[in-house]
């Protein structure tokens, strides 16, 4: 399964791109995505937190991703 990863802020710096394809194995949950992301880019493990959004909404760890979903990595926010 392939998703379209979008990254902002420090997540973009770690990923090295603001958009990229990302291949997921059998487990298509958000938590599996997070685990595989950290496996490929260890620096994600150093962040205070890491969240994900689909359709412009935060998604929980057990959310099931679909093929071709656009998934946005949300590193710790610091607006205001």
């Amino acid at each position, binding site marked *: 399964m392939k998703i379209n990863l*979008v990254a*902002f*802020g420090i997540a973009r710096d770690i990923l090295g791109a603001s958009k990229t394809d990302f291949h997921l194995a059998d487990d298509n949950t958000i938590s599996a995505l997070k685990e595989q992301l950290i496996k490929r880019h260890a620096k994600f493990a150093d962040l205070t937190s890491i969240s994900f959004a689909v359709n412009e909404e935060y998604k929980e760890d057990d959310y099931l991703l679909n093929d071709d979903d656009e998934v*946005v990595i949300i590193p710790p926010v*610091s*607006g205001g």
Partner: protein
Amino acid sequence: MIDIQIKKSALIEKECHDFVADPGAGGSVVFVGTVRNQTKGKVVQRLEFEAYEPMAVKEMQKIADTTMERWNAIKVSFHHRVGVLGIGDIAVIIAVSTPHRKAAFEACQNAIDTLKETVPIWKKEIFEDGEVWVAAHP
């Protein structure tokens, strides 16, 4: 009534205050967040803000809805700046009007506190000797 804007140009406090002014309001509270000249003693040269805009607007809309419902706000105006900001530049304005003033203080404070927790906007502080994404690391 709700006014939410993410802007690349300078924020103007008067715009937000004028929006929330209302003959039924006993008061309005405006929070203006500006770029400080230092963080933990280090001199800040400038800031760079970026937003995941459509989602940032959605999340601000949720905060505005809460402000209207929970504090019976009459009008709210949230403006957030993106791009490169210098010292003293306004990064965010939160204006709330309510029939009675106590609610306006509470609602405004809740709005800025929540914005800083949930709205996908990021700021990078640029120092003389480097730069850092604020809050990224513990």
